[in-house]
C-alpha cells in the first residue's frame, strides 16, 4: 500500500469504521441466516469492501447509485440505516424496502440508492437512462452502477455502454471483478479478460485498479468521478477483487481451491488499511478498540431494531402493484 498524502485522521477513521461495519454486519447476517432469521438468497460482500467504500466515499448525496443483489455494503456506504437494512433482511415492514424486497432488493429513495437488482446486468440500461435524465434535467449529479465481471458478458452491458457513450451521459460503471460469477471463473466468462479494455469498444475511458487496496480504489474512483462529473461522459472502472465467502448461502464452492481463497485473504482490505493507518499514525490501538465497541453497538442496535420490527398484515398483500393502491 503506497503512501497517500492528504488523508485526514478523521476521514481515515471513518473509512476504517465503514469497512469494519460492512464486515461485521455481514458476519452477523450470515449467523442470522443459519438461525433462519434471514431467508432467501444472501450474497456476502466479504473481501470486497474496499470497492464500495472507495467508490462511494467520493460521491455526493444527490448522485444515484445502483447495485446488484450483493449490495449490503453499498447501502451501508451510502448511509442507509443499518437497522433498516437488517429489518429488510428479516422481512419486517420497518425495512428499507418495507420487507417486500429482502437482501437482494435494498432501496432507499431518499438516499438515492436504487437497489438491489437481482437480474444480472438488468440494471445497467437503467443506469444509463438515469444519467440521461440527469443530463436532460441539468441536475449536475452522476450515476454510479456496480456490477460483477460475470454481468459484463450479458448483452445489456454492450447495449448500455454503447448508449451511454453515444449519448455522452454522466455514468460511472464499476465492474467488481471478483474473478467468479457463481462458480464460473473469469476465463470461462470472457474470451478477453482484461475487462477494462472493453471500454475501447465503446470509446469509453476506462481503468483497472487493485480492488483490495482502499487507497488505490479511492484514487482511481476520485479520478473517474471527477472526469464523469466534469466531462459528463461515461467511464468504466474495473476493480479487481475477490470474494472470500461462497457466492450465496447455497454454494458448496466446488469450483475453487481453498488455497486460492487463503492466498487472497492475505490481501484482505481491512487489515491492510488498518495496518497502514497504524503505521502512519493516523489511528491508534485505543481508537480501534473504541471503534470496535461502537460497531458492536451499532450492529446490536440494528438487530434489535429488526427483531422489534413488525410483519406487514396479510391483507396488504396486493399493495405496491400500482401506485394508487399503495398508500401506506
Amino acid at each position: 500500500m503506497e503512501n497517500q498524502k492528504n488523508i485526514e485522521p478523521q476521514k481515515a477513521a471513518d473509512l476504517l469504521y465503514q469497512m469494519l461495519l460492512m464486515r461485521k454486519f455481514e458476519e452477523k447476517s450470515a449467523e442470522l441466516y443459519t438461525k433462519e432469521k434471514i431467508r432467501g438468497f444472501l450474497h456476502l460482500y466479504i473481501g470486497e469492501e474496499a470497492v464500495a467504500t472507495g467508490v462511494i466515499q467520493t460521491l455526493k448525496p444527490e448522485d444515484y447509485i445502483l447495485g446488484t443483489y450483493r449490495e449490503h455494503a453499498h447501502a451501508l456506504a451510502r448511509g442507509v440505516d443499518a437497522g433498516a437494512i437488517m429489518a429488510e433482511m428479516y422481512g419486517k415492514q420497518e425495512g428499507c424496502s418495507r420487507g417486500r424486497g429482502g437482501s437482494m432488493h435494498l432501496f432507499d429513495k431518499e438516499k438515492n440508492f436504487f437497489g438491489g437488482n437481482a437480474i444480472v446486468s438488468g440494471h445497467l440500461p437503467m443506469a444509463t437512462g438515469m444519467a440521461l435524465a440527469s443530463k436532460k434535467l441539468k441536475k449536475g449529479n452522476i450515476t454510479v452502477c456496480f456490477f460483477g465481471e460475470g454481468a459484463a458478458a450479458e448483452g445489456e452491458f454492450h447495449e448500455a455502454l454503447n448508449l451511454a457513450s453515444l449519448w455522452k451521459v454522466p455514468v460511472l460503471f464499476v465492474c467488481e471483478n471478483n474473478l467468479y460469477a457463481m462458480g464460473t471463473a473469469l476465463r470461462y466468462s470472457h474470451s478477453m479478460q482484461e475487462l477494462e479494455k472493453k471500454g475501447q469498444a465503446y470509446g469509453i475511458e476506462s481503468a483497472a485498479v487493485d480492488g483490495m487496496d482502499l487507497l488505490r480504489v479511492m484514487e482511481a474512483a476520485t479520478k473517474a468521478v471527477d472526469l464523469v462529473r466534469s466531462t459528463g461522459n461515461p467511464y468504466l472502472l474495473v476493480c479487481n477483487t475477490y470474494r472470500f465467502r461462497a457466492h450465496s448461502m447455497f454454494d458448496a464452492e466446488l469450483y475453487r481451491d481453498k488455497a486460492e481463497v487463503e492466498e487472497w485473504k492475505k490481501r484482505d482490505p481491512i487489515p491492510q488499511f488498518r495496518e497502514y493507518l497504524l503505521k502512519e499514525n493516523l489511528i491508534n490501538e485505543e481508537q480501534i478498540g473504541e471503534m470496535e465497541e461502537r460497531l458492536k453497538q451499532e450492529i446490536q442496535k440494528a438487530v434489535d431494531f429488526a427483531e422489534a420490527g413488525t410483519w406487514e398484515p396479510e391483507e396488504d398483500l396486493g399493495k405496491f402493484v400500482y401506485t394508487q393502491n399503495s398508500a401506506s
Partner: protein
Amino acid sequence: MSEMIKITYREALKAGIREALTNDERVFLMGEDVGRYGGAFAVSKGLLQEFGEDRVMDVPLSESGFVGAGIGASLAGMKPIVEVMTVNFGLLPMDQIVNNAATMLHMSGGQINVPVVIRMSCGIGKQLAAQHSHSWEPLFAHIPGLVVLSVGTHEDARGMLHTALEHPDPVIIFEYTSMLNREAEIPADAGPMDISLAKVRREGKDISIITYGIGVHKSMEAAEKLAEQGIDAEVIDLRVLRPLDEKCFLESVVKTHRALLVEEAWGSINVSSEVSARIMEKAFFDLDAPVKRLGGVEVPIPYPLHLENASVPQVDDIVNAVIKILRP
C-alpha cells in the same frame, strides 16, 4: 358536441405525441428511427425537426438497452415515451419491462414508481410473415404492475397517450399497424381519454361481442351485417387489457346472456380465455349459451395473403359464429 374532423389513425397518434412534447418538457420520444427516418410507419415524421434531437431521439438497435434506459430516465424525473418499433422486437426488452418496470414499485416497498410509457406497433395485415406479424398483447397483459392499453379507435389514438403519461406506473400501449391509414371522424378538440374503462362501442341486446384492437372494427362491421339479419349485437372494446374492466363486460353479458370473444392473438391463453373464465365465474347463471371464442389460428403467421387472412378471424367468421350461437 364539438365539430368533427376527419383524421387517419396515424395522424391521431402523431397529434397525441406532438401535444405531449409540447405540453411537458420532461416528455421525450425515443426509439429506433423515430427521428431522421420519420418513424418506421411515419407516425413521428417531422417531430425531430419541430422539437430537436433532445426531445426526439433516434437510438441504435438495442431494445433491451434503450427500453431499460427509458425506465431509468423515468426513475430520475423524465417522462419518456419509448417506442419499440413493433411488438415483434418486444421480447428483447421484455425482461426490462417485467423485472424492472413492473416490479420496482413493489420490491422497493412502494418507494419507487416507474412512470414510463412504452408504445409498440403490432398486429397482422401487411404480409410481413412469421417474425413480423405478432399480436402479443396477451403476453404483456399477463404481467401485474403494467397497465396495458390497446388502441382500437381514433379517439383513443388521439387521447390515450396523454393519460398514460399522467399515470405513475408503466403503461404499455399497443397500436395497430394495419389501421394507420384508416380514416375516421373524431371531435376536433378530442383529447385525454380515460384509460381504466372498457367501452360499449355499439349497444345491442342479443349478444355481446367482446374484443379489442382491430377486432373492434371487424366486430362493428359484423354487427352491421348481423343487424340486417335481425340480430342486435352489442360490441365491447376492452381497451384496457390490464387491469381488465370486468364490470363493463359482465354487465353486458348479464343483459344479452350470450357472448362471443374476438381477438387476433393466438387462440390459447389469451385475453379471450380470461374474459371467458371471468364470465364463467361471475355470470354463469346469466348465460343462455356457452361463451365462444374466435382467436388467431395457432400458427406463426404465413406470408401469402390468403393464408395470412385465414389465420385471424374475419368479419364473416364473426357473423357466422354469432349466428351459430343464436340459432344453433
